[in-house]
């Protein structure tokens, strides 16, 4: 899996207030704009930042995505979900 459609989607949601609004209003319609397979769509819908990180997405991107949706006060909650960087090293080629 290349994840690049997910990466574009998470980037857009993390960096654009308009995109975020569209997503929150109609998540399925919004996600249909991206070439996501069912599994990828589910990962975004349930905001599975841990699994997205394990699969290779940039943690700064994931942090921005989470903060964008839930505000800076959600940082603790976000970090509780996230694996360590060390745990992912050497697991990808």
């Amino acid at each position: 899996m290349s994840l690049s459609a997910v990466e574009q989607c998470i980037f857009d949601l993390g960096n654009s207030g308009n995109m975020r609004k569209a997503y929150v209003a109609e998540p399925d319609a919004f996600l249909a704009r991206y070439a996501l397979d069912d599994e990828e769509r589910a990962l975004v819908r349930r905001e599975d930042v841990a699994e997205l990180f394990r699969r290779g997405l940039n943690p700064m991107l994931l942090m921005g995505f989470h903060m964008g949706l839930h505000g800076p006060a959600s940082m603790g909650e976000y970090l509780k979900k996230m694996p360590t960087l060390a745990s992912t090293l050497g697991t990808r080629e």
Partner: protein
Amino acid sequence: MGAIVGGFMMPHDPTVFINPRKLDNGHLMDAYAEICRRIVELDATSAVIIGADHYILFTPKCLPQILICLGELNGPVDQLPGLPNRPIPHNPVLAERIFAHAQETGFDLAVARSLGVDHAIGAPAHLCLPEDGSVTAVAVYMASGVAPYLRLRRAYEFGAMVKSAVEAMDRDERVVILGSGGISHWVGTGEMGRTNPVFDRMVLDAIVAGDADALLGLTDEEILREGGNGAMEIRHFLGVMGQCPEGRAK
């Protein structure tokens, strides 16, 4: 003729400015002010500031290895306490000269026509350059926050290229080069909040000794493991060291 008259390195971590636990950060603010004093003392006319995009400026459709802005600067666009988003006095002549020299010497720099910079460049621009605009900025972004990362050696070579570009200028220009970045820190991963003083000491010792090889010998995996994804920003320090290869730090 142009000359490089100094190099400086400084952090830009947003938590310094947000300061969530209300710690005393006076020593950090003093350090920025001290750099500013020394830049003025050096009679600098321009500053080349090297920062990292934190995946907010450049999109997955075009991620540059190295980018230089040829036109207006403003920022930081990610507003932080004490760092209002405002125009940053810039030096388009120097930026063009560096870009042209880069082309002549085999660097493929992406360009921005104008750029709203993030805190990596906004923090030093606001805190290390005099408020009167007498030292104008050139913004450079290296791929230190988003893979594929710039190779360490290339960052070092970039510094040397800037030095030769400046020295080939036919107008008086006294340039300082600023490497904006952190040592060990983890951004958005489970380790966030952690630092590694052993790694930090090693990096600082290498900088003070002017020992670029000690840093160039690191692998990305070592840096990520010991210093975190934030420590990939030591590329910016190598960019500074590359323009003063014989330099030792004070």
